[in-house]
């Protein structure tokens, strides 16, 4: 018994150690690799890599930059969560982009027209966003559950439709109000009483951190609790890990597809809220677009883990934020995009390599144990054919 137990412990402690070490090493290596690639690009374009990185870092730690980084990260985090919920059950919700844009537009319109006391109005605006996002994503879920339409295709299509619907709604005839002298056009501004208060979190600057950061953190906790502590989350993860096993265990996969898309869309509906309730107070032509795609990258970067996504969002936001200072110094700010792209790619590659390495290592370990330990494991579990054990 004892040699077998030793083998087990050896294997498992090895495995755990391996996992722990590698799970940390993989993203770090990926970022390092991305930095190397970026350095090469910088050298080719005639810029000094270290000075550039130093510049980015120096700019990044200024109080104002820190606030901006936190503020963008709040938005990115919500987008990452929305995508990650789908990812956890192998659903690729590319439609987060359309979902949050439509949700923000309609929420902003409601916020600008409905007369309610401030805090209540905030709740209503957020609810409208959540509802619109969920419904828009629900179409994708419904199509997949009832007709087997790939969520990738339908959500891309719905992004385009959301753009069209948005352009149609954002006209003076419907939801928009023209501003005198401006070529911009937007929804009626949300009254000041319903502006989400910010925090003066970072000393040394008057710029406030979005109050919505608290909501984002709460959403991260809710995401974690939902996935790991509820039956629904268990079903969702089981479906993502093995659909066949989930079906056999009694999970109604179609229902799960619909529910997951609804939740993913609901979170997507919140993506525009930090900006809407914390900064622009109206949905206009220059409302930030494309956050849904950023969310995909960040969910990948964070491996769908609530803390990982937060780190990814902060990193992404920091990089985005540093593009202005690079531009000011005449360094091509596209460097930032190159860096973001290589980080995502190398994270994916690094994890794949680590995964394969783990599988191979485990297989080797099991082989070793079987040759060395089968005879020894005697006991109740293995009256294994003796001649097999002694054969070469």
């Amino acid at each position, binding site marked *: 018994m004892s040699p*077998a*137990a030793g083998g*087990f*412990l050896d*294997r*498992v402690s090895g*495995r755990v150690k391996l996992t722990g070490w590698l799970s940390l090493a993989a993203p770090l290596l990926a970022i390092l690799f991305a930095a190397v690639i970026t350095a090469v690009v910088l050298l080719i374009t005639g810029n000094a890599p270290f000075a550039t990185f130093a510049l980015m870092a120096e700019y990044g730690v200024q109080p104002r930059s820190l606030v901006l980084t936190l503020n963008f990260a709040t938005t990115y985090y919500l987008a990452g969560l929305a995508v990650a919920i789908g990812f956890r059950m192998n659903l690729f919700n590319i439609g987060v982009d359309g979902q949050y844009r439509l949700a923000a537009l309609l929420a902003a319109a409601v916020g600008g027209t409905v007369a309610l006391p401030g805090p209540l109005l905030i709740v209503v605006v957020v609810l409208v966003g959540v509802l619109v996002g969920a419904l828009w994503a629900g179409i994708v879920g419904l199509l997949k559950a009832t007709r087997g339409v790939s969520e990738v295709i339908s959500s891309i299509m719905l992004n385009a439709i959301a753009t069209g619907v948005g352009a149609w709604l954002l006209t003076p005839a419907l939801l928009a109000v023209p501003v005198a002298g401006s070529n911009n056009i937007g929804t009626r501004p949300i009254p000041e009483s319903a502006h989400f208060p910010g925090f003066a979190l970072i000393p040394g600057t008057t710029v406030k951190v979005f109050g919505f950061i608290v909501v984002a953190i709460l959403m991260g906790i809710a995401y974690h609790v939902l996935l*790991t*502590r*509820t*039956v*629904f*989350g*268990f*079903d969702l*993860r*089981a479906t993502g*890990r*093995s659909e*066949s*096993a989930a*079906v*056999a*265990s*009694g*999970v*109604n996969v179609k229902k799960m597809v619909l529910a997951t898309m609804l939740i993913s869309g609901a979170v997507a509906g919140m993506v525009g809220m930090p900006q809407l309730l914390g900064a622009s107070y109206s949905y206009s032509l220059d409302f930030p677009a494309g956050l849904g795609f950023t969310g995909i990258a960040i969910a990948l970067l964070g491996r769908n883990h609530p803390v990982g996504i937060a780190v990814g969002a902060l990193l992404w936001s920091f990089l985005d934020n540093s593009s202005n200072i690079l531009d000011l110094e005449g360094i091509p700010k596209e460097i930032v995009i190159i860096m973001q792209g290589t980080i995502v790619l190398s994270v994916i590659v690094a994890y794949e390599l680590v995964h394969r390495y783990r599988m191979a290592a*485990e*297989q080797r370990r*099991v*082989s070793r144990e*079987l*040759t060395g330990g089968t005879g020894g*494991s005697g006991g*109740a*579990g*293995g*009256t*294994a*054919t003796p001649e*097999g054990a002694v*054969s*070469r």
Partner: protein
Amino acid sequence: MREAAISIPTEVVAQPAVELEGITKRFPGVVANRDIRLMVRRGHVHAIVGENGAGKSTLMKILYGMQRPDEGVIKINGDPVAFRSPEGAITAGIGMVHQHFMLADNLTVLENVVLGSEPRKGGIAIDFRAARKKIKEISDAYGLGIEPDMLVEELGVGARQRVEILKVLFRGARILILDEPTAVLVPQEVEELFDNLRVLVGQGLTIIFISHKLDEVLSVADAITVIRRGETVAEVDPSAVTARQLAELMVGSELPSPETRDSTVTDVVALSVEGLTVRAPDGRAAVDQVAFTIHKGEVLGIAGVEGNGQAELVEAIMGMRPADGTIHLADADISSWSTLRRREGGIGYIPEDRHRHGLLLEAPLWENRILGHQTRRPNAKGPWIDRAGARGDTERIAREYDVRTPGIDVDAAALSGGNQQKLIVGREMSGDPVVLIASHPTRGVDVGAQAAIWDHLRAARADGLAVLLVSADLDELIGLSDTLKVILRGRIVADVDPSAVTPEQLGSAMTGAGEES
């Protein structure tokens, strides 16, 4: 080593075409091949027989270069080789005809044959003229009767199989591996195939024929090797052996038959099925008007050659597959119930493929304890997962069912097959089942785990559990079952008394060839 095989053209007539010595292949948790020895003479049809899961496929994958053995030597025409990929095997003159055809329907025979091995004109253009000529030559030489310009979709199953054979001959194969070639054929086509095979060996080719249809094997093979549980158990001459003897060799007789003759069958009906019909996607009835009743304390065994509707039957009862007919659990009509509701109603399920249907391989054991029981205590309290409850109960299962693991936070993938299966059995027994659907409950597990699982099934039966047992292990079926039914092409074709039947008789009944019991 592979270089040597290609470069030395030693022509020794007496050399066997294929020789395997001491081939051993391990997968995590299971040894698929152990010390396999095999000698195939040139110009022979050499059959390899064994039950499903005996290790035939793994062995052939090793020979065809798709997997590498952990130990052992492969010799082709006397020269040792080590294939790294099928390309190496093809170069050495080995071809494989897979059970499932790998042909593109909307291309012609010619295009299918040249696909992947296009003869080039000047290195660029495909030389169709040369290819067509060569196909005609091969077809004529071996009497295959193939027209190169026919579309594959216009061909019948038998002709498609001949195209597959032609494809490997086109690539210069002298040793052909046929993996269960008759599984998809009707009897007349089987005869035609055998005629073709005789022509091929008559011209000096060598054929390795994998099957578990013993009558066919006896009619076509020149030599037979029997594999059981990953080991070669016998090399027999087909003219000196009967189908019964062969079945005995395949099934083996060294395992202790579980002695459970004192009946615990009650007259309380636990599960009854009437007129159950499951349609395959092509409209054919995979399960055809099946009816049976299982009482409390009864084990109903379903015997049959793999692929005769057992999997569909089980999935229909579990509600994973749409079916016509009615299913009653005690008095309740559960035909329209969801899988979840059926499980909650007291049906336990040991799936045939534990990796696909039974486990989340990349999840820890305690989460696997929850799988299939996620709405019930001790795993859940309302909408919340009860982590403490689930973990505690997983510890209990590991203890009571002897799941050998250092802890419950280990991923299921890290356990051996036997321990995975014991976890599943423990889990399903812990749900207080009224009925247990056990599909190949001891497949691919070591002998110790098998005995333990049988013990658990027997104990539960004594406590009044009704069991539907589907298995390919005839000893298991005969030893455990109180009632035994034979399924063939989706229909129940015979009722067998397990106390009076031998594995050979059962084997004959399963293939539809033997006498009725």
